[in-house]
């Protein structure tokens, strides 16, 4: 049974096996709504917007916000700045971790409710549990950045590889070149055991290019597929092994 709702400026799609107990949908929606209310930069009344406006201090922020900030700062250090919560104008932008945190929390809610077989998709992120139709592993298609109506490939997600994130540069637009960053990758997909690692590293590799890709593959237990600016592909051994086999 699929449940779709809009929050945090994107669409959430939750698919729970019919054999599972009813998913606590209200609670799950509230997880995302709370995150949106606290961290949205599109809402002047969010806690983060008030901090950015100088109306309140980070030191006085809620525990949730301080923890998200700490987490994002940790990742900035770990990725040598390829991932950062601070925008050039000095404003804080915690979206890089907030969506993944909300997905993680929603996953915990589903687990606690006794749901075993489900997928949760938010924007370019996916968190899966258990098995898909027919008891087979969940199979997820990855969009071809050259033709967004087509699939580039499809991979199986097997426990503990539950999380997957795809990030990309929309095109080799002028603004990117002007920023001095010729994008090496049009699209990067990272598969990991947890959604935060997958999300942060997919973003960091798009931003940091090949050196970040190498560092990420060395330091974290992840599977990666990259699509280069000339549509060339690279993949880790684990990603190759996860490629779906048609029935």
């Amino acid at each position: 049974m699929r449940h779709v709702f809009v929050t945090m400026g994107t669409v959430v799609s939750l698919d729970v096996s019919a054999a599972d107990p009813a998913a606590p949908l209200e609670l799950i929606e509230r997880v995302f709504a709370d995150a949106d209310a606290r961290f949205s930069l599109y809402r002047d009344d969010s806690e983060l917007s008030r901090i950015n406006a100088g109306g309140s201090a980070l030191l006085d922020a809620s525990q949730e916000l301080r923890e998200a900030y700490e987490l994002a700062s940790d990742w900035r250090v770990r990725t040598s700045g390829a991932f950062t919560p601070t925008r050039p104008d000095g404003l804080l932008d915690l979206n890089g971790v907030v969506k993944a945190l909300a997905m993680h929390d929603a996953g915990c809610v589903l687990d606690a409710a006794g749901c075993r077989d489900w997928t949760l998709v938010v924007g370019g992120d996916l968190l899966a549990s258990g098995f898909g139709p027919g008891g087979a592993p969940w199979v997820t298609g990855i969009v071809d950045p050259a033709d967004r109506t087509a699939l580039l490939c499809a991979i199986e997600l097997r426990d503990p590889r539950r999380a997957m994130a795809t990030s990309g540069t929309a095109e080799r637009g002028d603004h990117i070149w002007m920023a001095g960053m010729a994008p090496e990758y049009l699209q990067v997909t990272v598969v990991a055991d947890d959604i935060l690692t997958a999300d942060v590293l997919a973003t960091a590799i798009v931003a940091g290019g090949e050196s970040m890709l190498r560092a990420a593959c060395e330091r974290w237990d992840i599977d990666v597929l990259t699509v280069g600016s000339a549509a060339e592909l690279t993949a880790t051994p684990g990603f190759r092994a996860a490629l779906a086999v048609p029935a």
Partner: protein
Amino acid sequence: MRKRAVAASVLASMGILTVGWQIGAATAVTTTTVTTSGGTGSGTSGTSSSGSSSSSGATSGTSSGATGSGTATTGTGLTDGTYTGSSEQTRFGNVQVKVTVSGGKITDVTAVQLTDREQRSVQISNYAAPILRQEVIASQSASVSNVNGATYTTEGYLASVQSALDQATS
């Protein structure tokens, strides 16, 4: 099994693997180049080795130069035995392999050191190697439950990265 698969793909994707090893007497050091091409080289893609997963102590004492011991010499000039190559620097990090020669032929090549730059305990490195589009095409026709596409990195984000890098280099 995963380690074997990774090691095999490392060899295949590197294309050329340079192994320096010592053959025979301790004083005669010979550097030999083993060239593999997609695992077609004799024995280089074998999976019959037992105990191929190396412990962290496996490379200590062997990283400088090479070690080996052999017994019978055959017509190929290769002496049967097991040889640990020198630690080679590659763009993917240091690589050190162990080669088994039997009957004058290389029967197995196993990785004993594929380290990362942080010199963690020895383990198989993970990295993204080029993959042909035709290798992923078959998977396209699999029945999928979800589709995963990019959430685009914003202009502001990339600019932020640039500013961070500027700070890092100033």
